[in-house]
């Protein structure tokens, strides 16, 4: 039998949208099969059909292990040997690690939950994964990366024949990625097939054996990764050539416009970090997840109490008690998790864009809808936001476009210093490129940009200078002509301090 899973001629229509149009997928046992495509290409829909979350349209068939396959709920899918790690991570925060691992398939003894056995088994799985958490810890107390690993452990322990991983590395560090890849290789050696969805090119080429590409609900093609290169793959995904993945626009670098001195957070997650940004410069902040990068910028932005530290904007000392103190000085922070802190998902694009700079949109003290509409229209065009209109609900846009809305919202306030925390997380190649270009244009206009990213190639491609953090400290700084992946990794893992 050549394929463990075969999906043929699958279509899915949502009211008004044809999400999948006669697509196919063939997965061999023991391979890592990448699903590629921009957001909205139909990858997630296809996988949700496989998991029994969506029902496919009439026609087409699914063969699993050579036999016709049907699942009308995730439970049925799992019972047949298909498991999925979801992109929108859904851990049960108030339950413990072991409870999360065994939720829905609790270990039993005499008809009751066998807590002891669950803890032991969880302990074993955690240790195998190289994770250092207690099985009795609540997920609320873990980092996002740790939660993600728990989710992966859960899927692995299902003993499935096909495991779908939807953006499994979106929130974990490179070191953890390596651990994950180790697990994936171990699984495939046992004949398990992994369907891997990711936007990270480097991962596709390092872990995946074959790739299937989708675009706008259509199947484009498949191939072995060893026979392809990045440019080819991008062309298949976007339907045109993208010659430069990391476009870098030249800008004139001027004087220091922002300086943070000896920032120490009260909760000690940042232990005395200083840095400065110049006009026209893109400063990258690298490091592992949990190194204190987001904590640093959130501290500067007045979202958490600082026990020490001074902040200077354009040479002027600023006392920051709350975000509005620093927003007033022309600093913007575009937060990491756009859904939690960045957007009102049930509001329209116009409303969201108007949220920060609302004072500019008033007439006689009242909110002027027309002003807001024209301002928002301007940014929809400038940032190439793909939306039917400014009245569209933000929750219905793709991740990349949502991210652009968040950026537009802050740009409308005309800030001079823009801090972005993981601006390209979970968005597709085309949208990433738009954002890189936008950052380039901003510094050309004389603004200063600070960008946090966990993707080293991205930092190296876009930034003029990279500062690296490790365990709440600044572990080093690298200028553009000294950029190497190795040097940044070394600083991030604090081998030299």
């Amino acid at each position, binding site marked *: 039998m050549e394929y463990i899973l075969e999906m043929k001629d699958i279509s899915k229509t949502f009211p008004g949208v044809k999400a999948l149009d006669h697509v196919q997928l063939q997965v061999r046992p023991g391979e890592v099969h990448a699903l590629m495509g921009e957001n909205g290409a139909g990858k997630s829909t296809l996988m949700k059909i496989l998991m029994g979350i969506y029902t496919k349209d009439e026609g087409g068939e699914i063969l699993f292990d050579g036999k016709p396959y049907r699942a009308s709920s995730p439970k049925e899918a799992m019972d047949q040997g298909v498991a999925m790690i979801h992109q929108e991570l859904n851990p*049960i925060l108030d339950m413990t690690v072991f409870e999360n691992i065994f939720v829905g398939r609790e270990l039993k003894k005499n008809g009751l939950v066998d807590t002891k056995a669950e803890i032991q088994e969880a302990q074993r799985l955690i240790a195998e994964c190289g994770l250092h958490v207690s099985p009795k810890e609540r997920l609320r107390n873990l980092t996002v990366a740790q939660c993600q690993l728990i989710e992966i452990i859960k899927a692995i322990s299902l003993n499935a024949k096909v495991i779908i991983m939807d953006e499994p590395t979106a929130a974990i560090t490179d070191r953890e990625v390596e651990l994950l890849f180790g697990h994936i290789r171990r699984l495939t050696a046992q004949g398990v097939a992994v369907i891997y969805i990711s936007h990270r090119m480097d991962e596709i080429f390092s872990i995946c054996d074959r790739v299937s590409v989708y675009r706008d609900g259509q199947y484009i093609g498949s191939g072995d990764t060893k026979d392809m290169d990045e440019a080819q793959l991008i062309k298949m995904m976007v339907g045109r050539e993208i010659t430069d993945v990391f476009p870098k626009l030249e800008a004139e670098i001027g004087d220091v416009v922002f300086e943070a001195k000896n920032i120490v957070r009260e909760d000690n997650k940042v232990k005395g970090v200083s840095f400065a940004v110049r006009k026209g410069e893109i400063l990258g902040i690298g490091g592992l997840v949990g190194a204190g990068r987001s904590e640093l910028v959130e501290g500067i932005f007045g979202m958490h109490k600082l026990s020490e530290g001074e902040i200077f904007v354009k040479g002027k000392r600023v006392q920051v008690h709350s975000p509005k103190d620093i927003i007033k000085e022309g600093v913007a922070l575009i937060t990491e998790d756009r859904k939690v802190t960045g957007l009102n998902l049930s509001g329209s694009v116009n409303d969201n864009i108007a949220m920060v700079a609302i004072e500019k949109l008033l007439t006689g003290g009242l909110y002027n809808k027309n002003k807001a509409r024209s301002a928002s229209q301007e940014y929809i065009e400038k940032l190439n936001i793909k939306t039917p209109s400014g009245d569209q609900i933000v929750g219905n846009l793709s991740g990349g476009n949502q991210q652009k809305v968040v950026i537009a919202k802050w740009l409308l306030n005309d800030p001079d210093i823009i801090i972005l925390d993981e601006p390209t997380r979970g968005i597709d190649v085309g949208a990433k490129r738009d954002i890189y270009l936008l950052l380039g244009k901003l510094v050309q206009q004389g603004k200063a940009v600070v960008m946090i990213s966990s993707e080293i190639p991205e930092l190296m491609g876009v930034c003029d200078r990279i500062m690296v953090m490790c365990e709440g400290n600044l572990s080093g700084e690298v200028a553009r002509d000294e950029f190497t992946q190795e040097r940044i990794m070394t600083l991030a893992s604090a081998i030299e301090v």
Partner: protein
Amino acid sequence: MKQKKSVKSLISEYFIFVIFIALVIVLTCLKPSFIQPSNLVNILKQASINGILSFGMMFVIIAGGFDMSVGSTVAFTGIVAALLGQGQYPLIVPLVIAMLAGLAVGVINGVGVSIGDLPPFIMTLGTMTAVRGLALLLCNGKPVTGISQEYRAVAAQSFFGVPMLAVFLVIVIAICSFVLAKTVYGRRVYACGGNLQAARVSGINTTLIRISTFSIAGLLAGLCGFLMTSRVTIGQPTAAESYEMDAITACVVGGVSMSGGVGKPWGVVVGCLLITVIANGLDIMGVSSHWQKIVKGAIIVLAVLIDVKGKRKKD
């Protein structure tokens, strides 16, 4: 640092217990008769019906729901039990029929919420009103008198000095705690409330779990209806007005999170005792009922405040 954190979380976890003990001490000092055995028996009696109701409510809230209809269900099943408890049938008949009637209300709530996809608040608000109407209709608005001596004795008698009502409460506490802590079902109730989507993709039949929690609340409300009629010796269609609020209060004060997924049975026991002790203590001191309302309100807000602060993700 780790040590400090755990002490802090320990205090916030057991805070309500500390408040409870403090309150008992203060009341005893102010009015020594508070701690007399006869009054402790009163407290047990007074806590029992709300306690049983709170345990049903606890299941619903932990699974991420909310039930406004339990008070009306108590009145409705109380009438049912009063009509059947005139001595014409053995006592088990009114008990079982009342519980089944409560169960039926619970199932309707559950189906409306998890299959009809209605917000729990709206669905149970609807049944709250309709079931109250049903109670009034069943007895034509008049209290049902004439329940048998045997039936009256259920709530009036004691079991080695412990009022029978409290015995019922203890049995309910024991069963519910066991189910929540030890069974697969209990674990899944927490999972549903913790994150419904996650529970669903983990293969849990969330629809069934949610229906079942409303059913438990209904079933226990039916038991309360039976006991209530025995205690007040008449079936009243207007009884148990706003009891759902007391049950919710007991849960929230006892650390059950309104957003679901969190809650310990012992917390609800303390929450329920706390409410009873406030009412009893203030009654004993002759404090006006207006003040009682203020104190009760303040305690709810305080408890939820602690809940929210304690839950805030460590940053």
